[in-house]
């Protein structure tokens, strides 16, 4: 099963141009036409086009891009994304912060205005910087019609169920069953849109397995996906009308594991554990506080390593050392802990954080994109802004222990009221520590 972005000529087009204003029409035409070709509706394609216009205009300014700019537009089936790739030694990423605002005192707009506009045009941005080369990717999701064909009744216990990869119509049926019968709070909202779930599976980013009997009755399913890191998040198993103790849940979990067993995935985890989860296949990494109808609930994070652990190096701030060592000892992970210290080295003035929202799941995740001297105030701004916009949302911050430059965020997080909750082994370049915000908390 394809669990990652695989280059497919029919799903990816690219353009390389010098960073000169004369090429702006070429860039916007490329962005618009390829977005439309990859299935975005006019309005969504326009957003991606405007974002491309803003960022390319910025790159034509002094000192932004040192060489040619390569644009790559990719069809993600349920979204289209546009990647800018260029060499640079200094690029002002500040405007990509969620909380950025533009002060405009005079006639002339500051240079980062365009970046800010670009950032607000799209559904998701990610940035990757390595060896003087910056990649910025903008993603716009496709719009799907809302359909309501009424409630689909569930059938009784399956006789001799078989676990299989569903075809498109079965996927859509699975989606409708989830909409009407899945217990609340354990299913991502995107799964409840039949056309979208079908496209998510067709994209190769999501895997789905279902259990059905010879008559085609659907008794359950499981889904999983991966976004960049070495971990796969799975959802389910979801069972419909199956008796307690049925082995269907176990077979679905085994199908999920078998699908990724020979890939480079290091582990799978679930933050929305299903009541049908066969727990003997998993270990508990820790817990997160989830908001439920009856208040805050501590929810375990189930995890299963796929590959034999190779050990590794974790770069941590001294304030995170005790948490990491306790986690490694409890879970028997062999890690060489290296402490980081600030020793007067120069740093960039501005930090950048990325924010990912999942309103249906009531959570937002912040991730460091860039370390800068304003990190403390930037973090505070983000927390304030997110909580003002979505009161009560569960707020997380991820630090990748394989990227030493992220360690200095630790004391700022503790001061801001975040607490380390879970270590996700090999969740990024190294292990990832997931911090959760607790209102009113300061450094313990």
């Amino acid at each position, binding site marked *: 099963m*394809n669990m*990652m972005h*695989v*280059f*497919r000529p029919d799903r990816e087009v690219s353009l390389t141009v010098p960073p000169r204003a004369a090429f702006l029409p070429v860039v916007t035409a490329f962005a618009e036409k390829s977005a439309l070709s990859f299935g975005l509706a006019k309005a969504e394609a326009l957003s991606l086009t405007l974002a491309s216009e803003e960022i390319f205009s910025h790159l034509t300014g002094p000192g932004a891009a040192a060489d*040619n700019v390569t644009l790559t537009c990719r069809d993600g089936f349920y979204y289209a994304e546009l990647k800018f*790739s260029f060499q640079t030694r200094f690029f002002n990423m500040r405007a990509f912060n969620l909380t950025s605002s533009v002060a405009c005192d005079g006639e002339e707009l500051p240079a980062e205005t365009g970046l800010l506009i670009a950032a607000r045009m799209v559904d998701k941005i990610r940035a990757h910087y390595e060896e003087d*080369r910056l990649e910025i990717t903008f993603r716009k999701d496709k719009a799907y019609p809302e359909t309501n064909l009424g409630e689909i009744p569930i059938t009784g216990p399956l006789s001799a169920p078989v676990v299989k990869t569903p075809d498109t119509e079965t996927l859509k049926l699975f989606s409708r069953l989830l909409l009407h019968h899945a217990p609340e709070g354990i299913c991502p909202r995107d799964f409840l849109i039949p056309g979208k779930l079908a496209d998510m599976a067709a994209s190769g980013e999501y895997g789905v397995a279902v259990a059905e009997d010879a008559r085609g009755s659907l008794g359950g399913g499981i889904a999983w996906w991966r976004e960049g890191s070495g971990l796969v998040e799975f959802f389910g198993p979801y069972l419909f009308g199956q008796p307690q103790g049925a082995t269907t849940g176990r077979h679905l*979990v*085994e199908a999920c*594991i*078998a699908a990724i*067993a*020979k*890939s*480079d995935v290091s*582990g799978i985890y679930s933050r929305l554990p299903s009541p049908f989860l066969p727990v*003997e*296949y*998993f*270990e508990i990494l820790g817990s997160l506080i989830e908001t439920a109808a009856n208040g805050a609930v501590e929810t375990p994070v189930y995890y*299963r*390593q*796929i*590959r*034999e*652990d*190779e*050990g590794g190096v974790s770069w941590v701030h001294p304030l995170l050392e005790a948490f990491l060592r306790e986690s490694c000892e409890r*879970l*028997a*992970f*062999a*890690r*060489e802990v290296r402490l980081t210290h600030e020793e007067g080295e120069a740093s960039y003035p501005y930090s950048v954080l990325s924010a990912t929202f999942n309103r249906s799941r009531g959570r937002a995740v912040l991730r460091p994109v860039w370390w800068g001297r304003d990190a403390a105030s930037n973090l505070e701004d983000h927390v304030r802004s997110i909580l003002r916009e979505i009161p009560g949302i569960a707020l997380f911050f991820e630090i990748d222990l394989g990227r030493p430059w992220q360690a200095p965020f630790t004391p700022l997080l503790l001061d801001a009221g975040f607490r380390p909750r879970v270590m996700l082994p090999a969740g990024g370049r190294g292990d990832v520590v997931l911090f959760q915000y607790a209102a009113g908390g300061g450094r313990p």
Partner: protein
Amino acid sequence: MSPLSLESLLPPYIRSFEPYVPSRPDDELMRLYGCSRLFRLNNNENALGPPPATQEVIRRFVPPRAALYPSGDSFYLRRKLADRFGKDPEQFLVGNGANEVIAFAIKAFCEAGDNIVTADRTFAVYEWVATFSGLEARLVPLRDYAFDDRGMLARMDGRTKIFFVCNPNNPTGTYWGRDRLRRFLEAVDGRAIVVVDEAYCEFVEREDYPDGMSLLDEYPHLVVFRTFSKMYGLAGLRIGYLAGSLPVVDAIRRACVVYSVNAVAQEAAVAALDDGNHVLESRRLVRESRAYLEEELAARGLPFVSGEGNFIMIRLPMSDTLAYRKLMTRGVMVRTMTGFRFPNFIRVTLSVREAMEAFVAALDEILKR
């Protein structure tokens, strides 16, 4: 300079293929997991090591000879194998471990659009080599932990070039008896090559276990793989071989890398074939170790799959990868079976009593918690 565009340089099947990451060296693992000794029960190595005469050959190797190329086609070893099995030396090809001869066979017979057929839960290298060669690997589910002959035949089409049958199967220890193998060879009937991988054959004491070598004259499409890594304790020197009919081996030789087997390995292998006592001693060790471990596992109510070969597969009431880490902290290294698509199973090499007792004690500790 433009950035290196690996995406356009690499074939799709290489881009999407995930490389196998071998374990770190023992001393690194011991340092990481904080253990002062390590029982390696993960690779089905022979705890007795190479036969004594072979050890003597290795000891006597004169270091300056390392400057000279070895025999490019393992001349003396092929002659020895021919004597041993009553064949022509040209019926043998020697490789840098059996893994290399798998690649020779696939390269010789398969081109784009072809496929190979094997089981879904068996030694992974057949599937890997096919996949990273841009070929389709058709994986047939095991039936009752054994290769499913009918299922495999049902997957055959005009582009099927090779069937791979691991006999006995790693990791389940199941095997096809003589009659079943013959029936399969007859059903395939020269339309494809049938590789029977007998890496663990020297451990098998069952009467109905077929000796692939004895079938070569009858079935020209049969190719037999064997290794010196398991019974003969030469895993560290990397040497294995294949045997087949003259035209088939002649064809495979065209895709064969010569000079890939070093001089020490060739000489050690020649000496190993003469030591019949080593085989008997190793079998005795495995027999006793299996009896001990089966009894201990039964006493603890742990299900296991115990067949032929110097290993046993155990189903745990916990994740096998978690068990691996916890056992490592106690100085015992096993093989997790998730990668073989047997989640919650571990495979344990049958070794000397001290190692097996250490394993059982460590298992008790991790299951108690």
